[in-house]
C-alpha cells in the first residue's frame, strides 16, 4: 500500500464518531454523541454520481431483460393459459403448445446429473479438505477450479463421440437387471423389452451423466470451502475425545458443512437445468413425456429454444420466451434458496488485518 501517494489535500472527515472515551460528568452537562456531518467535496459528488449511474445502468439492463421476456411471453401465455403447463406437444402454429414434456425432460436430466455429481463431489470435497495434504492437495484444488472453466461444448463433444458408444452396455445391463423398476425399463410401444443398442442412444441418462460431470467442479469447490471452514477447536476436541478421522468428519465437518452441501448441490442443479449445448448435441428431441430414462429420446427447455428459434414466427418466438421464462424462474428460485442456505451457514465473513 505504501506505493500510493498521500492524498494532497485533506478531504472532509467521513468517520463515524467514536464513543467519547472519558465521560466527565463533573459540570452536570449530559454527554451527547457529536453528530458528524460531512460535506461532500466535488470529487466525491462526481464519484458517487458515477457509480450510482453504473448501478442504475446495470439494473436497467437486467430489468429490461426480465420485463422484455415477460411482456413477449405474456402474448403466448394469454392464448394458452394454464394448459401451457400440461400440454406436451410444441406446435405454436396450431396453438397447441406447452412445456410439460420439455420441463419433464429438463428436470429428469438435471436429477440424473445430480445423481452422478453429488456422490462424486461430496467424496472429492472430503478428500481434498480432510485426507490429502501438501502439494498434491493444492494441485488438485486448482485442477477442480480449472475444470469449472472448461467450455460446455468440450463436454458435449466427449459425450457424443466417446461416452455415447461406451455407455450403451451399461445402460443395457441396468435395463436388464433393474427393468422391474419402471424408470429403468426400456420397452417399445407394446411393452416388449428392447435390447438392440439403438434403443439406448441419445437418452436422458447419457445427457444426465455429461451434465453431471460438468457441474461436479462447481459443487466440489463450494462443498470443500464449507468443509474447510469447520472450526479447528471442534475438530481437535473430537480428536481429543478419541474420535477417528471418520468419527471427526461425521461429528464436526459434516454438520458444519451441511449448508455448503445443500447450497452447492442446488447451485449445481441450477446450472444443470440451464445447460444447453451439451444436451442439445446428445439428445434426440421428442415432445412426449418419456419416463424411461435409459431409452432414446428426451428434451429440455434450453434445447427446445436452440432447436426452434430460427424457424419461429413472431408468435412462436413468444411461445419460446414463455418456455425460457419458466426455466429462468425455476433456476431463480433454486439459486436464491441455495445462496441463502450457503450464506446462513457461513460465519466470520469479516476479515481483518
Amino acid at each position, binding site marked *: *500500500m505504501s*506505493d*500510493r*501517494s498521500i*492524498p494532497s489535500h*485533506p*478531504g472532509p*472527515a*467521513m468517520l463515524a464518531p467514536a464513543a467519547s472515551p472519558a465521560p466527565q460528568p463533573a459540570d452536570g452537562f449530559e454527554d451527547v454523541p457529536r453528530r458528524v456531518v460531512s460535506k461532500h467535496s466535488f470529487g466525491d459528488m462526481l464519484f*458517487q454520481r458515477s457509480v*450510482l449511474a*453504473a*448501478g442504475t*445502468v*446495470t*439494473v436497467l439492463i437486467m430489468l429490461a*431483460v426480465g420485463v*422484455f*421476456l415477460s411482456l413477449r411471453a405474456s402474448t403466448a401465455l394469454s392464448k394458452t393459459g394454464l394448459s401451457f403447463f400440461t400440454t406436451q406437444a410444441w406446435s405454436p402454429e396450431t396453438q397447441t403448445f406447452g412445456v410439460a414434456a420439455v420441463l419433464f425432460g429438463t428436470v429428469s436430466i438435471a436429477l440424473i446429473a445430480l445423481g452422478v455429481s453429488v456422490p*462424486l463431489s*461430496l*467424496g472429492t470435497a472430503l*478428500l481434498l479438505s480432510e485426507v*490429502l495434504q501438501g502439494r498434491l492437495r493444492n494441485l488438485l484444488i486448482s*485442477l477442480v477450479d480449472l*475444470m469449472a*472453466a*472448461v*467450455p*460446455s*461444448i*468440450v463436454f458435449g*463433444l*466427449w459425450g*457424443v*463421440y466417446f461416452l455415447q458408444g461406451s455407455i450403451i452396455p451399461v445402460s443395457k*445391463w441396468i435395463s436388464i437387471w433393474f427393468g422391474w423398476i419402471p424408470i429403468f425399463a426400456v420397452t417399445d410401444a407394446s411393452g416388449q423389452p428392447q435390447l438392440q443398442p439403438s434403443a439406448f442412444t441419445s437418452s436422458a441418462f447419457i445427457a444426465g451423466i455429461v451434465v453431471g*460431470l460438468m457441474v*461436479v*467442479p462447481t459443487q466440489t469447490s463450494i462443498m470443500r470451502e464449507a468443509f474447510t471452514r469447520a472450526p479447528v477447536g471442534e475438530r481437535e476436541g473430537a480428536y481429543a475425545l478419541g474420535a*477417528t478421522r*471418520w*468419527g471427526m468428519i461425521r461429528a464436526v465437518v459434516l454438520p458444519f458443512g451441511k449448508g455448503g452441501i445443500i447450497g452447492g448441490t442446488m447451485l449445481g442443479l*441450477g446450472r444443470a437445468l440451464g445447460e*444447453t*449445448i451439451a444436451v442439445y448435441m446428445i439428445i434426440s428431441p421428442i415432445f412426449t413425456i418419456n419416463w424411461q430414462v435409459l431409452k432414446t429420446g428426451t428434451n429440455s427447455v*434450453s434445447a427446445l*429454444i*436452440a432447436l426452434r*428459434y430460427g424457424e419461429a414466427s413472431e408468435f412462436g*418466438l413468444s411461445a419460446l420466451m414463455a418456455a*425460457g*421464462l419458466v426455466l*429462468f424462474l425455476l433456476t*431463480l428460485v433454486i*439459486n*436464491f434458496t441455495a445462496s441463502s442456505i450457503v450464506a446462513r451457514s457461513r460465519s466470520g465473513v469479516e*476479515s*481483518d*488485518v
Partner: protein
Amino acid sequence: MSDLMTEVVSTPATAPRTFLGAGLDGEDEAQREVRGFTARQRFDLVGAGAAGAALAALLFGWFAPLSGAIGWVVVAFLAFLGLYVLLISLDSGLEEVKDRLSAALFSTAGVILFGVLVFVVVYTIARGVEALSHPNFFVQTMQFAGPLDALDIGGVAHAIVGTLIQISIALLITIPLGIATAVFLNEVGGRFARFVRTVSDAMTALPSVVAGLFVYAAVIQGITHERSGIAASLAITVMMLPIVIRSSDVVLRLVPGNLREASYALGSSKWRTVWHVVLPTSRSGLVTAVILGTARGIGETSPVLLTSGVSAAMNTNPFKGPMISLPLQVFDFVRSPEPTMVARGFGTATVLLLLVLFLFATARALGGRAPGELSPRQASRARATSARDLLRIASKKLPDPVLEN
C-alpha cells in the same frame, strides 16, 4: 493494587506446571498424525488391491461367464473393498475399519472425478492434434474449403478473430460497468444498492440460451435485422455482467475495513479512498474475477448460437454480417458427418480449450493472493517508494548542513 500485581506476577514461577509433556522426562510429545499413512496401512491397501484385481481376473477368465472392461473394474473394486475391510479388521476394531473404509471411498470418488475430467480434456486434445498439425489451420479460413477437402486446406482463423473481437467488445462494456457497480454496492451502499445486488444475483440464474434469445428478439429482430458480431457481444455481455459483478463484489468485500478507516483518518475523501486504497488492495482479485468471467463468456456456445450467425469467411466488422466464434465453429463443424469436418471440430475445440486454459493460468498467476498481499516485484517497488518518502520527509525536517555531512 500493587500487592495484587506482584502476586500475579510471582505466581507462575512457583506454581506447579499442569500441562503434560516436555519437562519431566525431557521427552517432547509428538503431534498426532491424522493425515499420513503408516507402512502397515500402505501394505493393506496394496495387498487388497492386488487381491481384488486377481479375484476379478479369475472370475472373468475362468469361473464365471462375465465379460467387459467396465464390469471387470466394478467387480475388482468391490472385491478390493471387501478384502480391505477384512485385512483391517484383522488387527483393529470397528471404528478403525469405518475410518479407513471412508478414506478409501473418498479417494475413489477423487480418482473417478479427476480421471474423467482429465480424460475429457486429453480426449479432445488427442483428437484435435490431427487438424492442429496442419499449420494452415491457424491462418486460413473456411471460405474456400468444402466438407470433402482434406485438412491441409482451410482453417479457423476467422473464428479466432471473431472470438477475440466479440469478447473484447463484451469486456469493454463489462469491466467498467461491472466494477463500477460492484464499487457502488460496497462503498456507497443504501437501500438502492441492496436492490441492485438482489437484481444482479437474480440475473446470475439467467440461462445463457435465454440471454441469447433476448438479444435475438430485441436487437436482431427489432433493430439490426441481421446477425452480427455486436449482437453476439451483447448476448455475452448480458450473460457475463452478473458473474463479474458478483465475484468483484465478493472481492471488494474482503478489503479490510480498517484500511479504509485509516485512509479516512488521514483525511482523504471517499473517491480517493476507493481509488488509492480499495481498488489497489483488491486488484489481483478483481483481475481474477474478470478473467474467470471472460473464460465463461468465451466458452459459452448457446448465446452466440442464436445471435452471431455462421460465416466461413473472415469478417472483422462487428456491425455488419455474420461473425462466427470458436465454440459455434466447433458446433458447426461436428454437425457434418464428414470425418475431416469432425477432425476440424476437435481441432477448434482444442484451440478454444487452450485459450481458456491460458486465461485460467493467467488468472491463477495474477490472482490467488489475498487482498493486500504483494508479489515480490510489487513489494520491492513499495519498499523503494517508502524509502523515497522517508528521504523526502527527512530532507524537509533536517536543515541543510546536516544533510551535507
